[in-house]
C-alpha cells in the first residue's frame, strides 16, 4: 500500500485546520468524510458545509485517480476503497461508471460551486455558514451554470484573431530569414 502514487491533485487544497472540521478526533473526522463520500458517489451532486465538503473532495479525487491508474485487481487500491467507501455497492460504481467516464479526462473529476449565504439562517451571526455544491463531472443533471456562449465571432475577437495571425506569420518569416 505504501507504493501507491498518483500525480498531484488538481483541486485547490483548503487551508482550514483539518482536526477542527469535526469534533471527536480523528475517528469522527474519518466517519464524517466516509459519509459525505458515500453521498457524493451515490447522488453525484450534493450540497453542504464548505469545510467538510472541500476536504472530502480531495479524497474523492484521489480515489478515482487511483482506480484509474491501478484498476480493480490491485490489492492496495482495493484496501483503500474498502476503508473509505462504506456502502460496498459504490465500489462497483466507481470502477464500472466513473473510471470509464473519466478515462479521457485529465483534470479534476469534481466541480464545486459556492452557494449564496442566506443571512439569518446560521447560528453564529459573525461566522456566516458558507455552503457549496459538490458534484461529479459529466453527471446527468442539468448544468448548474448554463452553457457558456461562444464569443469567438464578436467583432473585437475577430479583429484580435486577425492581428494574432499576422503577428505569427511575421514572426515565422523572421525566423526563416535568420535560419538562412
Amino acid at each position, binding site marked *: 500500500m505504501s507504493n501507491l502514487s498518483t500525480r498531484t491533485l488538481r483541486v485547490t487544497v483548503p487551508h482550514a485546520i483539518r482536526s477542527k472540521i469535526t469534533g471527536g478526533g480523528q475517528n469522527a473526522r474519518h466517519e464524517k468524510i466516509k459519509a459525505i463520500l458515500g453521498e457524493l458517489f451515490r447522488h453525484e451532486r450534493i450540497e453542504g458545509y464548505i469545510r467538510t465538503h472541500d476536504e472530502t473532495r480531495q479524497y474523492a479525487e484521489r480515489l478515482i485517480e487511483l482506480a484509474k491508474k491501478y484498476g480493480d485487481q490491485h490489492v492496495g487500491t482495493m484496501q483503500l476503497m474498502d476503508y473509505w467507501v462504506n456502502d460496498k455497492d459504490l465500489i462497483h460504481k466507481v470502477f464500472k461508471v466513473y473510471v470509464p467516464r473519466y478515462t479521457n479526462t485529465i483534470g479534476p473529476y469534481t466541480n464545486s460551486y459556492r452557494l449564496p449565504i442566506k443571512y439569518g439562517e446560521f447560528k453564529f451571526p459573525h461566522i456566516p455558514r458558507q455552503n457549496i455544491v459538490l458534484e461529479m463531472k459529466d453527471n446527468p443533471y442539468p448544468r448548474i451554470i448554463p452553457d457558456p*456562449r461562444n464569443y469567438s*465571432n*464578436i*467583432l*473585437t475577437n475577430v*479583429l*484580435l484573431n*486577425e*492581428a494574432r495571425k499576422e503577428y505569427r506569420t511575421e514572426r515565422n518569416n523572421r525566423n526563416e530569414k535568420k535560419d538562412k
Partner: protein
Amino acid sequence: MLKIRPCSNIIHHYQLRSSSVSINRLTNDEISAHRLRVYAKERQTQMERIRRVEKIEVDVHDPIQSKKLLMNKNLSTPYNCAQHLSSVLVDRSCLALIDDKYIWDINRPLERDCTLKFLHFMEDKCQEQNRAYWRTCSFIIGYILQTAFKSNNYLELCSFPPPQFQFGSFVYDAKLNLGDWQPNRDDLRCLSIQAYKLRDLNLRFESLNISKRVAEEMFSYDRYKLAQIPHMLRLISPDDNQPRLTVYKMGDCHVDITRGPLISSTKQIGRFEFSAIHQIDVPSYGEQMQRVQALSIPNQLHLHYWTFDYLLERAKKLNRSSIPSLPKINSPLSKIEQVQ
C-alpha cells in the same frame, strides 16, 4: 500632457488654400442640403402612395419577450416592435432577422406577416452584424469628411469597399483636394472627436429605394457617385418595374449610396478612431485619391485601451481592399440579370 487642438483648427488651417480653388463651385454644405432636399421630396411622394393603413401580424421571438404584435403595413419598423417589448431591445438591436432568412434594417418598414428576431453584437453568429457595423462606420466617415473641413474646400466622395476584417480597418475613398497634406496625430484626433459627437446625437439610419432618375437628381453634383449609379441599380420595384437603388440617410445630416444593411443608430458606436490617410491611384477614374482609414468597435463590446491601441497601430498600414472601379457593362439591365 497631450494637447488637443480645437476641431476648428483643421478648418482654419486650410481656409486660404481652399478658397482660391473653389470660387465658382457650390460649397459642401449646399451640396449636402440639396441631397437631403431631394431625399425628403422622394420620401414624401412614397409615403403619399400609402392610401390605407393595413394591419400585419408580426410574431416576435426573443429570449427577453416573445409576443404577437399587430403592426401597420409599410409603416411600422422592427424598431417600433422593439418599443412595444423592452428598452433593452431598443438600445442594443442593430439588425432584425425576418422569417429566419432575411436580414432587415431596424428602421425599414415591414411589408408582410412575418416572424421577427432581434440581433445584437454579442450573438453566437454575428458576422452579419459586424459587417453592417463597419459598413455604417464607412458611411459615417463620408459624413465626417464632408463636415470636418471648411465648407468651401470642395471635397468629392467616391465610395467604400465592403468591410474586410483581415485588413484591420474600414476605409472611405475620397478626393480631399488638400494638396499634399499629411495629417498628424492631432488632426486625426480632431476627426475622431466628430464621430464621438455623432454618438451623443443618436441619429437614426433610414433607407429609401429610389429610381435612377431620382438618384441622378440627388447626386447631380457628385461626379463619382453619378458614374456609380448604373452599377448600383439592383432592386426591381413591383410598382413600376424599374430598377432601383438603395440610399441611406443618417438623421438629417447625410445621404449616401450603399447596399446596406446599416445598424440602428449612431448611439451604438463605441470607440471610433481615425488611423491614417493614404494616397492611392485609381486607374478606372484615372486620378489620385485619398484612402481614409479608421477603426471602431460597437458600444456593446468592451476592449482594454492597450489592446485597442495595438489594433489601431495595425490599422495604420495601407488597407489592401479593392480600389474603387467601374466594371465595364453595356447596359444596366444586363448587370441586374447577372445578380438575380
